[in-house]
């Protein structure tokens, strides 16, 4: 009995040894700064010269005196609300297409996945040229059909749609997940459905979709978290300014400006905690809703 316990303890210990690099990393590089930023969000910390306790002043100013806070929050919500459903639906649609058994499908899969490999500043600069109102390819193409293209990145009403449009171009990343999951769906299910006379749409709707819900769930949770943190796109495509009439001033961009341009670090830290709470609540809601629609194979509902 004693020996067995020791063995168990030994195994537990080994487990901890194996995850030690992660634990050390987490405590030193994540948990430490996390706690520090929470504490410093109640101060007027500016990194170099001051750190005095100011109570809830930062939070109070954010909610009562800072219009740009609300602008940035609105911009971010707008982006998340439109981009997440569109990219999710786009990725599912694309993977359904690429799941067909036709000659040359590997070639097409590669083509559609390519944009997901490219990333970062280069892509944004490319899109700035594509979206150029006068000479860009997008408006030129629209012109062939007699549609006068908008001013994309210069018109405050079109900057966010332009970013969402750009995001749709790189749905290949999500597509890969869905494709893998679709290929895992048992062929026998389709065969049985076919014998029962189900149409292709019915097969897709009642077999494919339910079978890939775990991946949809995963994708929505992670892209929601990522969506709230949009920064690079706006920073690069508006030269760090936030675009015309602050229409690309997203939450994280404004936070960055407060932290590194005005050196108002305590204020920026308070902002980051508000964002954390928003994302936290949304993720909890997601997790609570999941059992209603996510289907795990072999699981009793």
């Amino acid at each position, binding site marked *: 009995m004693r020996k067995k316990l020791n063995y168990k303890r030994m195994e537990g210990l080994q487990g901890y040894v194996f995850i030690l690099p992660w634990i050390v990393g987490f405590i030193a590089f994540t948990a430490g700064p996390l706690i520090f930023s929470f504490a410093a969000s109640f101060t007027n910390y*500016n*990194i*170099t*010269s001051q750190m005095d306790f100011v109570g809830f002043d930062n939070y109070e*100013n954010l909610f009562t*005196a800072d*219009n*740009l806070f609300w602008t940035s929050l609105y911009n971010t919500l707008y982006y998340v609300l439109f981009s997440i459903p569109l990219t999710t639906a786009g990725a599912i649609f694309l993977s359904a297409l690429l799941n067909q058994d036709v000659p040359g499908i590997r070639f097409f899969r590669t083509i559609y996945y390519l944009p997901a490999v490219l990333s970062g500043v280069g892509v944004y600069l490319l899109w700035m040229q594509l979206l*150029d*109102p*006068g*000479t*860009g390819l997008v408006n030129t193409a629209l012109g062939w059909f007699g549609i006068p293209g908008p*001013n994309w990145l*210069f*018109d*405050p009403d079109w900057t966010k749609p332009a970013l969402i449009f750009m995001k749709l171009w790189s749905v290949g990343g999500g597509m890969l997940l869905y494709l893998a999951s679709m290929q895992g769906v048992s062929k026998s299910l389709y065969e049985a459905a076919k014998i029962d006379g189900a149409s292709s749409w019915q097969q897709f709707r009642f077999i494919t979709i339910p079978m890939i819900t775990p991946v949809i769930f995963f994708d929505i949770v992670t892209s929601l978290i990522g969506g709230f943190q949009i920064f690079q796109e706006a920073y690069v495509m508006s030269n760090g*300014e*936030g675009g*015309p*009439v*602050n229409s690309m*001033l997203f939450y994280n961009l404004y936070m960055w*400006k*407060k932290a*590194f*341009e*005005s*050196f108002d670090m305590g204020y920026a830290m308070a902002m980051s905690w508000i964002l954390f709470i928003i994302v936290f609540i949304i993720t909890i809601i997601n997790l609570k809703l999941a059992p209603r629609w996510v289907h795990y194979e072999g699981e009793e509902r």
Partner: protein
Amino acid sequence: MFSKKLLPLFFAVLLVLSGCAGFKTGDSKSADSGDKVVIDFWSFWGSEIRRPVIDKIVEDFNKSQDKIEVKHTFVPWGDIWTKELAAIAAKNPPDVVINDINATALRGQKNQAMNLSQFLEKDDISDRFYEELWNATLYEGDSYGIPFNTDTRILFYNKTAFKEAGLDPEKPPATWEELWEYAEKLDVKNGDTYDRIGFYPLWGVNSDVWMLNSDGKNFFDEDGAPIIDSEANRETLEWVLDWHKKYGANTINSYKSQIDSQQGNPFFNGKLAMYVNTPTFYTQIRDYAPDLDFGVAMLPEREPGSGNTSWGGGFVAEIPQGSKHPEEAWEFIKHLTDVEAQEYWAVKNFDNVANIKAAENAAKNSEMPDKDKVVYQMAIDNMENTLLTPVPVHAPDFMNLVNPELDSILLGKKSIEQGLKDAQQSLEKLTEKSK
């Protein structure tokens, strides 16, 4: 090939190695080099043109004495100041950093840059520089950075186009009214489009430059009170909107994208007759349109006597708070901003320098071709009209509030009166809050 057993080992080794690499960078400072003190100098000048010039200046300094060795580190533009801030917070900063002149006072107030008055008391070098530049480095009377280079905005005009339009190529427009008249004559319309555009004020600069030009006043007065909602600013924006109406959004957008593409700038092929930009824009003319016959002039006055005020910026060399060798850093900064280094920089880069004597020498330097000298001399002459707009220490991010109002006015979403009134109010609120 790797067997399955070896693969994890290989990755483990790789991890350890990459870990080591991370620790190496900060350590090289203590590398032994005899009795010399090694100081770390950060700049963002990494381009093919600028890197060799600054490296030569550093090398000259290292050879000129045997006590200090400067190590130049190139840090990309997008990273340099956030990295500097992190290094200051970690109490291990570089010894000299090139930073934005307009926020020097702010960095002084926040204790990021070292107060240089202790060195200036011993050797006062302030009269080396243009006064406007020097004043921008002061916070409560003390300097926190030494001006290195600067810029200004001047008018470039196409002499061939002037002749074609029957204008005197030696007589550039002197007032806003003349600018409009000249542009009317220079315009060549072809149906709905233009073969040549005379002038459009918002290519090359923003509307705030013209508001500065209109009355020589910034958005804040000497006491830091906002004065954006002024008669002159209202008139300026009206004038800008008139230009916008004249050419129309479509023409303006398509020209704008050509200007943004650099080598496609319509000024190079004569499709744009007048254009405002920094004197260094000349290097692009030299590269892309060497045969262009052009002249340079000061910005026109709003009305006779209102002044040819122009706008400038620049960079300073400063010692971050917590530098281990401030004395040696100061010696290097003195070298960096002295006549010899500054003249070398000016001639090799065709860049405006902060040192007055060096700038004047550069304009006469035999290495500079005649055409270059003309533009350079204009840049120097224009320094007298050039104002800087240092960020107010109590409202450093004020442009976040002003820009959307100006955007709304130019997009026709707000009237000029309303936009300026709203801008004025939000600036007043901002300054009040931070007091």
